[in-house]
């Protein structure tokens, strides 16, 4: 149930280009699926990587090298994905490292390794061949030695020595619950191989990489997209859907330093850095202590999530929810958000002020309240302007200064240079002591026709 792609590390939007002098050793296959392309490369000893283009015609190019700067280079190509055999690009070892194919050629004490084909200064019985990876004088582990990859040394006094290649589980350690882990462990604690995140077999799942871009769900590496206690992965074993991975914790816990991004009387974003003392839900129910398991059992032990500030029964966000939350002290209500905590205003400092609604503002502020630079009124990128110097000649729409050509009650505004934000209000506030009037009108004279209609009779028939 494993995919051949498990042998490879993918680089999206990249292609490997060989040097001119060795570009003739390419194998081109067309009309072939990605999985087939990977299978044929896995089964070939000459193939160490492949470029795959899905469109317009599925094209697979097998390559004898990986990116190493000397034999091949990686270039950007939005139509192509590069797959390189992990054993050739990995800088760490799995298990005893028998499949290590990296390019370290120095031992742990700094001695240069002897070439494997040579019998001098140390005679030995190993002979390089296309399958055993005994290349040049790179560290290898042909006899499955527990010390990991080793080599004969060029020092006549020292026959052989370990190269001290780090284990992948130690190469990158985790802090807290490892949600920032971006290492290359791809097996679980019981040794099961991980399933690729971008595949739905043998296990269907919701953690598709494109839906969680910030979780780096690369290849089949262990990750922690759901705030579990440790990184985990779906496994290639149909019988075991998911399992934790065995990755070393960093030796020292991160020093309890006061991160400048911590807030106490409001929260930013999802509130992961909120460290205030609100300890009840929006509806006024007291929160349960994090170090208690009653009335609600839970996995968020303060010492497992030591960087999440799970003190007392304060509202916190250890799992990337939409806002700070807590387990409640009511048995019937397991968790609740603490949305009564204010969101920190993310507006920048106002740089000027305007009178009334700012229609006559002629200042030179050219930033929105979020600090984004304004777009020039006279251009149409990134946003096509419906309001511009031609449509409003008297509105003094010069450069990209904040203006209020349409008499917006909420003050001067501008089109923004952020493609996602068409327009926004500016970093200008109303001059002290001014308020727009509230107009009391009688809605009776207003007729609404296509909106607000409801057929009250049908509710009961639609309930099951």
């Amino acid at each position: 149930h494993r995919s051949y792609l498990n042998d490879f590390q993918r680089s999206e939007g990249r292609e490997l280009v060989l040097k001119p002098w060795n570009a003739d050793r390419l194998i081109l296959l067309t009309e072939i699926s990605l999985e087939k392309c990977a299978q044929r490369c896995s089964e070939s000893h000459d193939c160490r990587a492949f470029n795959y283009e899905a469109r317009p015609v599925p094209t697979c190019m097998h390559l004898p090298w990986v990116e190493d700067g000397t034999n091949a280079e990686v270039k950007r190509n939005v139509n192509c994905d590069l797959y390189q055999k992990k054993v050739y690009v990995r800088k760490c070892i799995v298990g005893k490292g028998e499949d290590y194919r990296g390019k370290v050629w120095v031992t742990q004490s700094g001695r240069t390794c002897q070439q494997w084909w040579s019998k001098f200064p140390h005679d030995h019985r190993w002979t390089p061949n296309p399958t055993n990876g005994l290349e040049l004088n790179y560290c290898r582990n042909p006899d499955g030695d527990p010390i990991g990859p080793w080599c004969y040394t060029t020092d006549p006094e020292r026959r052989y020595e370990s190269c001290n290649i780090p284990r992948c589980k130690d190469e990158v350690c985790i802090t807290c619950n490892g949600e920032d882990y971006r290492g290359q462990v791809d097996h679980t604690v019981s040794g099961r191989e991980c399933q690729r995140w971008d595949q739905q077999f043998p296990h269907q799942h919701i953690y598709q990489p494109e839906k969680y871009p910030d979780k780096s769900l690369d290849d089949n590496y262990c990750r922690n997209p759901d705030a579990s206690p440790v990184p985990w992965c779906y496994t290639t074993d149909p019988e075991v859907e998911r399992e934790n991975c065995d990755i070393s914790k960093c030796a020292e816990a991160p020093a309890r330093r006061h991160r400048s991004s911590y807030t106490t009387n409001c929260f930013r974003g999802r509130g992961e850095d909120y460290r205030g003392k609100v300890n009840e839900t929006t509806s006024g129910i007291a929160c349960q202590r994090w170090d208690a398991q009653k009335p609600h059992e839970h996995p968020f032990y303060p010492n497992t999530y030591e960087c999440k500030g799970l003190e007392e029964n304060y509202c916190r966000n250890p799992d990337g929810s939409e806002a700070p939350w807590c387990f409640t002290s009511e048995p019937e209500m397991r968790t609740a958000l603490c949305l009564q905590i204010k969101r920190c205003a993310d507006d920048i400092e106002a740089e000027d002020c305007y009178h009334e609604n700012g229609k006559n503002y002629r200042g030179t502020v050219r930033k929105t309240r979020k600090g984004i630079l304004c777009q020039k009124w006279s251009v149409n990128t990134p946003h096509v302007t419906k309001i511009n110097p031609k449509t409003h000649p008297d509105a003094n729409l010069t450069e990209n200064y904040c203006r209020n050509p349409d008499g917006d009650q909420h003050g001067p505004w501008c089109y923004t240079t952020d493609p996602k934000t068409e327009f926004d209000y500016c970093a200008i506030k109303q001059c002290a002591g001014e308020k727009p009037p509230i107009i009391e009108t009688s809605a009776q004279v207003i007729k609404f026709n296509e909106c607000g209609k409801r057929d009250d009779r049908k509710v009961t028939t639609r309930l099951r």
Partner: protein
Amino acid sequence: IVGGTPGNSPWTVSLRDRKGNHFCGGSLVNSKWVISTKQCFSSCYVDLTGYTALMGTLYRNPKQGEPGMQSIPLTKIVCGPSESHLVMLQLETPAQFNERVSQICLPPERYIVPEGTMCEIAGWGETKGTGDEFVLNVAQMSVMSNKDCNEYFRGRVRENEMCTSSFQGGVGACERDYGGPLACQNSDCWVLEGVIIPMRRCGHPGQPNIFIRVSIYVDWIKKVMEM
């Protein structure tokens, strides 16, 4: 909704996160735009990939293929003027209006809805045991003047907010109702006069409910839709 009963509110939508969980309410103000509260979103630049608006059903967890149900991805979020706590959410495709899905009317700009006007709130949120969380609940309440409301909240109710009367039995919005509508009757149609925002307590006996006064921001709402 605390103290509500199952009801119909065709302009009320359920906002769903990437896991498909209901997390907040919203109101259809036209076929492509939903209005909700900023409090439900981590930022004005949040990546909405995987977020959807579900409408045309009374159930919080409708079955696949339920007739009339529409689930439309959200593609854009626009934050309202500061202090408005409002956001506008753009739908990837227009909602199909029918007897289960319709848009709510917007009030005139800066209009003050008269005291005593009959209104209702709707949502799939917490009922605190007073109702069934798996269906849309609706609760009726009438408009209370800011002056009277400020007596209870000791002057903290601002001009861009509005209140509805309190009930000794405790009626009001609660967790996961936020962003939903306060719809008020105007002859034969319903007008979006308020947007539900989080309060200190929900459905607290004797406590009036506070909403963002939509009429203050109708000019901004129309501008976003036009732009």
